[in-house]
Structure formats: structure tokens, C-alpha cells
């Protein structure tokens, strides 16, 4: 049977991708950011996930204003890095897991989550930066990846409550997949940041700390936080954090916190990172 073993959470700031791609990770500005991911690299190499369900959002790269699915799951064989206006990132193509992905789609739709599914989609920094942070710069990504794209560009994104419940439905779906697979789920985006308007640059460390604590220990109450609180306290783009609740929802109620990292700033954004494991009874 497939087993959902662990989750990783991380910001997916494009400037981090650019720093990796341009060999700037050892510069004074970037060093503290990347040192926060040393643990994750070792950890994921030991864990050897077969498949990662990667929750992220597209930033007007593959989806424009014509088509805006709230939840879209990638069931294709392969996904290419998107050209976001300055050429695609020099990273490997992302290999999907069509069997598990189709199983997830069919299961959660029958579980009342009316997902969109896609076969071909170019994936932007939201998906590829977390892969780079966790795996470095290999010639091929060491696992299959099932993209789950969440709309957080057009307001309103799905509620925290809905995201958390979708996570639970995904978990039920993973648990019912017959093949022996080590599956992880990653939640990406955030933490507090605002990229627009006279209030651009907002960072709210207190909000972020509270979010991390409750994500680990009390996700149920965290999932009740309304959109306006994210917008007001964590910035208009901080609302990406609802995506972390999908990954958390797929985990056991009690989890073991293996690693936590927080740093301000990377470009305009607070960097947050967590690793949680399910403990098999």
C-alpha cells in the first residue's frame, strides 16, 4: 500500500531560484537562507520519497485570466519548467506519476472535491524552487512529482478550512492506493509578504511564528482563520499560506516536528520552512 510518510513546507520565492541558478548561494545575502535548508537536503536523501504531491500556485505563468481553476491536479507524464519572461529555469523536467495522480483525482472528486485535472502544463517557480531547495541541482529530480495547483492570485482563494479538508481527502486517497509507495506532500508559498501597493514589504514575524506553531500543534483551529486575517496581517500575497493547510491536512493529527527554519528577508518575503513526519504506530 502507498504510505504518506512526511511533509515539507517552504516558501517558493523566485529570487531564491535565481540565486541558485546564478551560483549566488554563498553570497552574504543568501547564505543564511540556504543554510536553513541543509537539514532538509540530508533528510530527503534519507527518506527517498517515491512521489511528492507538490501543492503550489501558478503566478500568471500557465494560467492567465482566461482560465482560473481553484484546484488543479496534474495527471500527466511530464511537466516542463515555464518561461516566466526571461527563459525557463535551467532545471530538469518534472516527471509525474499518472497512475497515482489519476487515482487521487478520481478519489477526491468522489469525496466531493471537484478538482480540475490537467495533463500538460508548464510549472513555474512555485513548483520548481521548492524542488531546488530540497534536492539541489541534480541532472534529474530523484522522485516523481504530482503538481497540485491552487488559485491564490484571483481573490478569493479557497478557504483554509477547505484546503485542510482537501488534504484529508488526499490522505484517504493515498491510503487506498495499492502500489507500495513512499509518498510525501509539500506545501509551498508564503510566509508573510506583500508585493504590491504602498504597503509593499510588509513582514509580520509574529503572525508567521504563530502560524508555524499552530500548523504543527493545532491545525484544526488554524484552518478556521478567515482570508481577511491573512490579507491584513500577513500581506496580500501572504494568503498563499492557505496552501500549507492542504499538506498539513494530509498528515496525521499528531506529527513529529523534525525541522523548523525562519528568516527575513529573501527579496520581499519572509522565508519559512518546516519538516513534519508521521510516526507509524
Amino acid at each position, binding site marked *: 500500500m502507498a504510505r504518506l510518510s512526511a511533509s515539507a513546507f517552504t516558501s517558493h520565492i523566485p529570487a531564491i531560484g535565481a540565486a541558485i541558478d546564478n551560483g549566488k548561494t554563498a553570497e552574504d545575502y543568501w547564505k543564511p537562507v540556504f543554510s536553513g535548508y541543509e537539514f532538509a537536503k540530508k533528510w530527503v536523501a534519507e527518506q527517498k520519497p517515491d512521489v511528492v504531491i507538490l501543492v503550489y500556485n501558478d*503566478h500568471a505563468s500557465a494560467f492567465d485570466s482566461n482560465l482560473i481553476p481553484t484546484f488543479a491536479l496534474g495527471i500527466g507524464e511530464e511537466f516542463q519548467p515555464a*518561461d516566466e519572461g526571461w527563459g525557463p529555469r535551467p532545471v530538469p523536467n518534472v516527471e509525474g506519476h499518472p497512475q497515482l495522480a489519476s487515482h487521487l483525482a478520481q478519489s477526491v472528486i468522489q469525496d466531493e472535491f471537484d478538482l480540475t485535472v490537467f495533463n500538460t502544463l508548464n510549472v513555474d517557480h512555485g513548483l520548481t524552487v521548492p524542488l531546488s531547495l530540497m534536492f539541489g541541482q541534480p541532472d534529474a529530480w530523484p522522485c516523481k512529482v504530482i503538481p497540485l495547483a491552487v488559485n491564490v492570485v*484571483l481573490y478569493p482563494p479557497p478557504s483554509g478550512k477547505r484546503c485542510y479538508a482537501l488534504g484529508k481527502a488526499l490522505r484517504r486517497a493515498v491510503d487506498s492506493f495499492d502500489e507500495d509507495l513512499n509518498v510525501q506532500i509539500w506545501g509551498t508559498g508564503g510566509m508573510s509578504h506583500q508585493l504590491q501597493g*504602498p504597503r509593499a514589504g510588509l513582514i509580520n514575524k509574529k503572525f508567521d511564528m504563530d502560524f508555524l506553531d499552530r500548523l504543527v500543534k493545532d491545525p484544526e483551529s488554524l484552518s478556521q482563520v478567515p482570508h481577511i486575517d491573512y*490579507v491584513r496581517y500577513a500581506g496580500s500575497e501572504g494568503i498563499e499560506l492557505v496552501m500549507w493547510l492542504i499538506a498539513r491536512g494530509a498528515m496525521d493529527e499528531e506529527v513529529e516536528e523534525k525541522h523548523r527554519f525562519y528568516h527575513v528577508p529573501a527579496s520581499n518575503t519572509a522565508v519559512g520552512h518546516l519538516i513534519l513526519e508521521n510516526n507509524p504506530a
Partner: protein
Amino acid sequence: MALDKPYLDVPGTTIFDADMARKGFHLNQYCMSLMKAENRERFKSGERAYLDEWPMTEAQKEAVLIRDYNLMMKLGGNIYFLAKIFSCDGISFQVAASTMTGLTVDEYKEMMVTGGRSPEGNLYKSDMTEEGNNG
């Protein structure tokens, strides 16, 4: 009954909701066209003529020409779409963000490395001046 929009009293912030998206549809789709190198070239070699190919309002076109990102957002632009314009100009997200705040690029960078803009005084419209609260 009108939708509840509690975010309207968040200062210095434009929420890209369904009404804004409708207003900004053509502006945002024009931005998307800049994802293609040949379109970027055509835009750069004649901005006004390129904009005239799109059914945007005159106010939207003028906001693009003077690169007033706050105004573009007021007219329905979304930051992730507008990013295609400043990328085309070779400007980073951080530099573009600074232009929206009334800070110089260096002041903005300094604010970020010292922990970012504090939430204090920046949570409700009554807290903040039109130009923002950069203190």
C-alpha cells in the same frame, strides 16, 4: 445583496477580486502577451502602437506608458501579470515594489534587510496615510 469586502480597509493594498479582474481583463491579458520574446520586441519598439492593439481603456494604456504600478492596479491590473512589464524592462520585483511605496530602491532594500515593513500602523486604513507609512 452586495458582497462583503472587509479587505477594503486594508491600507496601501488592492485586492484582485472578481470585480477588479473584470475591470483589468484586457490589461492583464496584454501583460501575458509579454511572455513571448517577439511580443516584447514589438512592444519595446513602439509601446503606444502595441498597446493600441489591445481593447484597454485609455487610462490603462497611459498608466502602462508611465509605469505607474499603483495606478495600473487601481485599474484592474494584478501584480503577477504586471510583473511581465517590469521583467520586460529588466527590473527586479524588489525594485518594482519600491516604486509603489514612495521609497527609493536603497531605502526599500534597507527596510527589507532590517525586518521588513512593520505591521504596526499598517493594518487599518485609519492607521496609514495615502503615500503609505514608511516610518
